């Protein structure tokens, strides 16, 4: 049996996952989101990547960004590496796309701060 902590909401339910020949059975979740989280964790764990990108603007050396949706956990470091080589040259606003379809994940990298527009 495997134990997981659900990270969907602050309840942080402890999920019990029993694996058998037919697949797995989840218990301990308080809501359906917990069940879906456990299934996703077992098959294809997803995460949102939140980080920064460098900019050319001296008063704002980095701008905070995130993936527009959850991406496969296995892609996190590939995305980080890609972003480490990126330099933002435009004054974009919150929610605007920095890089489209990052590393073929179908997720965009979007700005999470409006500081460059202020």
């Amino acid at each position, binding site marked *: 049996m495997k134990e*997981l*902590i*659900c*990270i969907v*909401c*602050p309840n*942080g339910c*402890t999920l019990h996952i029993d694996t058998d020949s037919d697949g797995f059975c989840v218990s301990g979740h*308080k809501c359906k989101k917990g069940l879906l989280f456990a299934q996703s964790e077992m098959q294809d764990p997803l*995460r*949102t*990547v*939140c*980080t*920064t990108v*460098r900019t050319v603007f001296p008063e704002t*050396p*980095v701008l*905070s960004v*995130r993936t527009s949706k959850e991406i496969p*956990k296995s892609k*996190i*470091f590939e995305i*980080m590496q890609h972003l*480490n080589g990126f330099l933002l040259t435009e004054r974009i606003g*919150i929610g605007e796309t920095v890089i489209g379809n990052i590393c073929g994940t179908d997720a965009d990298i979007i700005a*999470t*701060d*409006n*500081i460059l527009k*202020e």
Partner: protein
Amino acid sequence: MKTVDVTVIGGGPAGLAAAIEAHKNGAKVLLVEREARLGGILKQCIHDGFGLVRFGEKLTGPEYAHRFIKEFSDLGIEAMTLTFVTAVDRTSEGYALTLVNRNGMSKVLSKTLILATGCRERTAKQVFIHGTRPAGVYTAGTAQNFVNLCGVMPAKRCVILGSGDIGLIMARRLTLEGAQVLGVYEIQSTPSGLTRNIHQCLHDYGIPLHLSHTVTRVFGHDRMTAVEVAQVDENKAVIESTKQIIECDTLILSVGLIPENEQAESLGIQIDPFTKGPICDQGLQTLLDGVFSCGNALHVNDLVDYVSESGETAGRNAAKWAHDYRTFASIEPGNGIAYTVPQRLNTAEAGGDVVLYFRSKKVYEKALLQVTVNDVPVYEKKYAHLKPPEMERLSIDFAQYDIKTGDTVKVQIREDAAK
């Protein structure tokens, strides 16, 4: 002299929510913020998970703040940034504030005050670590500011002391940016951060969490070269035989937050020795008439959603405030409860739901929470689990219990009746 109805000190999530709510309730509001931008600590909290309770979405800190900043400016509320409140004097007409900024000094007369000054991190000086004083010892919040706002990496190989949420978040953040995080050391036998942060910040990246362990010594001349860690026994005494040296260039501290209440103290406002925030009634008015408290200045929260909620409560009540005479019943933590906020019930204020925030003293599985009035049980609620790092919120209409001045309301855990 400039006059306003409500002055909010602090432009973080609590202050923004308080100012917006006070404005919506008809008050002329001034918000004073010492930094250049509104948003408080959320500006540097670029990870997601904010707003799940309030918006049903996983927002990053800056995104959560932006929603409030936008509403604040759309409503045309006045904010003075890069401005410090250097003195608050109580006068017969209200509170006279001395403000200092780049234009010099100015005075404002305010009917009421909302203290939304947030909290500060406990520093290396406040935890007992031996050794030299090399560069490389940072609080988690300082490291977060370096990485997320300044774009500077403070560490290559680091050890984290304390499993508070910011420490866990920084363990992940530094790992993502290429640092080696050797482990998180926590003196308590249970983690002090949220369970989901243990999972998504440590487990995801294979960062070990060492419970009942602490850092006992720091080595290094100019820059840190190593730390000494050791296991502690149940009395938190270091077990000598377990001492070991770990080579690293940085020690990150996530060892607790303390509400910032210098203004409250200068006004002689009574502080709760446990929460380190002002003692308040259900309207989040302190024991000094016309002064309100909210957010992390009131008590350290783990979710910003509740910070905003307390800001709104303070803002609404500050706007409506009118010198009313208050009489109190007390709300006290009983068995198994670390604290409650509010700590007083204004019995002159008729009815309505009272939001009660509390934390348990230890981890409980299947707990029965009981509220008593003068030792007579009036309310019970079952919890699957209660954990000290996770603040709980209850909404109770106390009007139905006919509570009188001088009564004692107690919040406690019935350990015998839970199963």
